[in-house]
C-alpha cells in the first residue's frame, strides 16, 4: 500500500517552507496542521527540525509531545539527531521513527548502533541530494549547506547494510519548485537498494505523485503543496486510486 505523507518542517516553534532549502517562510502551527492531516487521511506525518543541525538546538521535542496527545498516526521525527540518546529522546517524546541525516554521513556506525538499539524499522535515513553535472547525485548535509562528495546510490546501499530501515530522499534541485519529483532519482534508488523509499521534493500536482510512485517510490511526501491548500490529501488519494495506485481511502 503506497503512502501519502505530509512533511512539517519546523524552525523554532512554527512550520516553515522554503524553495531549494532557502528563503524559509512561516506555514502554520505544527499541531493544528498535524490534526488537519490526520482528519484528511494522511498515512503518516514527518516532522523535521530544519534549524537543529545548523544551529544546535532542539525545539521539536515539545511539539512532538503535543502532537502525540492529539494525533494517533505514525510520526517520523528528525533534524539534528546525532546520537542514540538523541533518538531515544525523540521516541520518548512520541516519534515512532527517527530520521538521521548529517550525523550518519559523518559517522555511519550511528545507523548500526540505532538499529541494534531500536530495530531497523525505527531508523529512517534522510538523504538530501543534488544532481551532479556529469550525472548521478551527490549527498549534501547540514540542511543543504555542505556538499560531501558522497555518491547517493553508494550511500543508500551502504546504509541498508548498516541497518537503516527506510530512506527519505529529497531532491534539493526539485525542493519547493512544484515542478515534479526527480523520478530518475527514484528509479536509480530502486536499483541501488531494497529499502522502502519516500520520495520528497518537487510535488506540484497529483500526476507528479503518480510519476514518483511509478518510478518505484513506496511513499510520497510533500510540504508546501499541502500546507498552502494547493492540493488536499483526499483529492490526491482519489486521483492516485483512479490511476490504479494502491492507497488507503
Amino acid at each position, binding site marked *: *500500500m*503506497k*503512502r501519502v505523507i505530509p512533511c512539517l518542517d519546523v524552525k523554532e516553534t512554527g512550520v516553515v517552507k522554503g524553495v531549494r532549502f532557502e528563503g524559509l517562510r512561516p506555514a502554520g502551527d505544527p499541531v493544528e496542521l498535524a490534526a488537519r492531516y*490526520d482528519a484528511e487521511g494522511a*498515512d503518516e506525518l514527518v516532522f523535521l527540525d530544519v534549524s537543529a543541525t545548523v544551529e544546535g538546538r532542539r525545539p521539536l521535542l515539545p511539539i512532538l*509531545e503535543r502532537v*502525540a*496527545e492529539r494525533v*494517533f*498516526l*505514525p510520526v517520523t521525527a528528525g533534524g539534528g539527531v546525532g546520537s542514540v540518546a538523541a533518538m*531515544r529522546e525523540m*521516541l*520518548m*517524546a*512520541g*516519534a*515512532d*521513527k527517527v530520521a538521521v541525516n548529517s550525523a550518519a554521513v559523518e559517522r555511519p556506525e550511528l545507523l548500526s548502533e540505532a538499529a*541494534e*538499539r*531500536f*530495530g*531497523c*524499522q*525505527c531508523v529512517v535515513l534522510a538523504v538530501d541530494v543534488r544532481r551532479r553535472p556529469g550525472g548521478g547525485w551527490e549527498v549534501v548535509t547540514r540542511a543543504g549547506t555542505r556538499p560531501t562528495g558522497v555518491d547517493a546510490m553508494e550511500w543508500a546501499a551502504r546504509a541498508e547494510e548498516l541497518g537503516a*530501515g*527506510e530512506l527519505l530522499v529529497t531532491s534539493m534541485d526539485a525542493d519547493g519548485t512544484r515542478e515534479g519529483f526527480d523520478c530518475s532519482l527514484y528509479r536509480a534508488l530502486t536499483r541501488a537498494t*531494497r*529499502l*522502502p523509499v519516500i520520495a520528497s521534493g518537487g510535488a506540484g500536482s497529483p500526476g507528479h505523485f503518480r510519476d514518483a510512485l511509478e518510478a518505484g517510490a*513506496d*511513499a510520497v511526501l510533500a510540504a508546501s503543496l499541502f500546507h498552502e491548500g494547493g492540493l488536499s490529501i483526499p483529492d490526491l488519494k482519489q486521483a492516485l486510486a483512479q490511476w490504479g495506485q494502491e492507497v*488507503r481511502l
Partner: protein
Amino acid sequence: MVTIVDAGTGNLRSLCNALTALGLESQVLGEPPRDTAACLILPGVGAFGHAVRALDERGWRSYLTRAAGAGSRIVGICLGLQLLFERSEESPGAEGLGFIRGTVRRLDASAAKVPHIGWSRLRPSGDERVPPWAYFVHSYAVRPEEAGVVTAWADHPEPFPAVVRRENLTGVQFHPEKSQQPGVAYLKALLGGEG
C-alpha cells in the same frame, strides 16, 4: 488500571496518550508491581533479543508467566506479540516468553519490501471485530503452531497473522495506537473496557 510493561525500548508515550484519550487509567512500570495486575500491555519496538534480556533483567518474565497463568488479560503489541512466542529468527538463542507455541520469522523479502512499513487491510478469520485498516512497522511476523489462534490476517503479498488470541492472551502485530480512531477504539475492546 492498565499496567504497561516498560522494557526500555521507547515509544510508550503514544500508547499512554491513546489510553488517556480512551479515558483509561494507566501506569508505566519498569519493574513488576507486587500484586498481579488484572490488565497488562506488553508493548515493544526494537529487537527481540534486546527485549528478552530487558524482561529477564527487570524480573518481568516470571511475573508475566504468573499473571498469564492467573488469568490476567495480557495484550502484546508488535514486538510484544512476538515476545509471547517461543523464539525468533531475529535473535537466535534468545528465549521468548513461550505463552503461545510457535516461532517468529523474518518476512520474505522476495514477496514484498522488508521492513513492512505502512497500512494494510485486516481480514478477520472469525468473528474478530478488527478495524478495516491498521498500521504496521515490522520485519518479522509470528508463525504459530496452531493455526486456530490467528483471529485476523494482514492482507499482504505474504499474508501473516495480524491478531492472535489464546485464552486471556491477545497479540496484535500492528500498532492500534497509531491506526487512527478505529485502531484506538479496537485497543479499548482488547482491554475489555478495563479502566
